């Protein structure tokens, strides 16, 4: 069984927000909720770097651990989904998530937040019919054999989605091709020792 993962190659991300738009469009996410966001560090400085963030579909997801209603659950392929019928809007997932993935449409007195929404890896969620599924969770592209639209539409292929092994292989290949001894992270003083770009195939 594949384990599905996102990976954003920070050296390729050009902060175009295409992934954000693609996600909004594919899933018809309700107003005020943005499942994917692009974070830019040191904007305008020579060291500027951007990365696209959404639910990372953690192996040991904190949101699942703290949810009091079992709204959140993990599929066998690692995708973390949510059941909107069970959500009571307590906000615990939002407190626990390291990536700010869970969002609520409202933020009113007496903890009235509405139903939580988050990235589904374009895998929909529990519903009786396809229409209901689309209306509640957005597209189920995984069921159609397609990958999440954000990654599919990424113009620089910075955002990768798919089986963790495949994604890791692609990224490893890039690191080797780039020839950075320190891999994706530049300026590592131990670059020679770590030599993340070590390519076994090139070494006689």
């Amino acid at each position, binding site marked *: 069984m594949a384990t599905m993962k996102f990976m954003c190659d*920070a*050296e390729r991300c050009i*902060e175009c*927000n295409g992934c*954000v738009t693609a996600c909004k469009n594919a899933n018809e996410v309700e107003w*005020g909720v*943005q499942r994917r*966001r*692009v*974070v*830019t*560090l*040191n*904007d*305008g*400085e*020579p*060291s*500027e*770097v951007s*990365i696209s*963030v959404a639910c990372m579909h953690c192996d040991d997801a*904190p949101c699942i*651990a*703290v*949810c*009091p*209603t*079992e709204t959140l659950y993990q599929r066998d392929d690692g995708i973390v989904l949510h059941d909107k*019928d*069970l959500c*009571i*809007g*307590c*906000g*615990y997932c*939002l*407190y*626990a*998530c*390291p*990536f*700010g993935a869970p969002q609520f449409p409202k*933020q*009113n*007195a*007496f*903890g*009235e*937040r509405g139903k939580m929404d988050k990235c589904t890896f374009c895998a929909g969620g529990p519903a009786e019919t396809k229409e209901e599924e689309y209306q509640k969770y957005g597209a189920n592209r995984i069921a159609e054999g397609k990958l999440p639209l954000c990654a599919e539409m990424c113009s620089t292929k910075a955002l990768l989605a798919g089986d963790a092994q495949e994604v890791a292989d692609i990224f490893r290949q*890039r690191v080797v*091709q*780039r*020839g*950075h001894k320190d891999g994706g*992270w*530049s*300026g*590592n003083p131990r670059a020679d020792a770590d030599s993340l770009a070590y390519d076994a195939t090139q070494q006689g």
Partner: protein
Amino acid sequence: MSMSMMHAGAARRLLTLLVLLAGLVLSQLALAQQADPGREAAFAVPAVDAELWRQVKEGETGPNYRDSRAESTYNLVNTSGETWRQIRERWVSPFGAIAVLGMMAAIVLFYLMVGRKHLDEPRTGRKLLRWSLVVRSLHWTVATLFILLAITGLNLAYGKTLLRPLFGDGAWSAMMSGTKLIHNYLGPLFGILLVILLLRLLSHNIPKAHDLQWFAKGGGLVGKGHPDAGFANGGEKVWYWLLATAGLAVIASGFVLDFPNYGQARDTMQWAGIIHAVGALGLTAVALGHIYIGTVGTEGSLEGMTTGYVDESWAKEHHNLWYDEVKDQAIPEDQLAEHRQASQGDEPAPRSG
């Protein structure tokens, strides 16, 4: 001829030089293109290093941090979320369960070993007013709310483990929605009423020197006879001050959690959640003791909070210092009943509570 030879030699040398130069330029160009079309442009981003990664994890964001999500208050990575989860799941939940279940077990054990505390002397039939109607109404409202909040709170903390297997999806969903509604809407009411009750009872609960004696004697469990006690004994004062400290902390943190519309930061919510859970679970455990002592545990206590009056013997034994103050106000039981009938429940607002 020699001139032409010389010319031809110079021309050849010049040509060689040109070819060499052209070769050099071409090779430089080829080097610039890195010769390998599959090779990615290796542009180094000098500052993206371990130090930056540390800053990201610490949540240190400079002025040039950007997030494309509107009104986002998130960092790139919020490690406090995982810390909160670990504190909650590893410490608060299990030890809270141990506290509440442990208290239940201790009470059952105490009841089986020591049993109900009966009055030493027979009832005199003369009654003393202990709790006014206002205090009794407040007490039972607060008590009802406390029990509702404790049950719903425990359900939010442990329902997933204990009750989820018993419910189908539909019933579970409705039950949890109801739980959250009760907890969030009755919580503030409980908070306000508890503060009023605490203010009303403050004068009875000022710590006194004889309270130390009360504790030394374990509230009467150690040695013979009852230790001195005023209107409130040492144990009651502890319960009062627990509510006035931990209780207020639970109420304050509850308000923080219940009103996200003021835009509290996530870290504030995490702290409020921990304080709320620790305080509430602790108070639930102690409340079980309060409920036991007030009902099954001690003969003659419950009637004080239901009818407002206690028997003279009870007052003499449990609150001797208070009894000395008010013994001349004792009313015979039948006179009290007559008075009640006459006024049809329209009691004169008693002042002693």
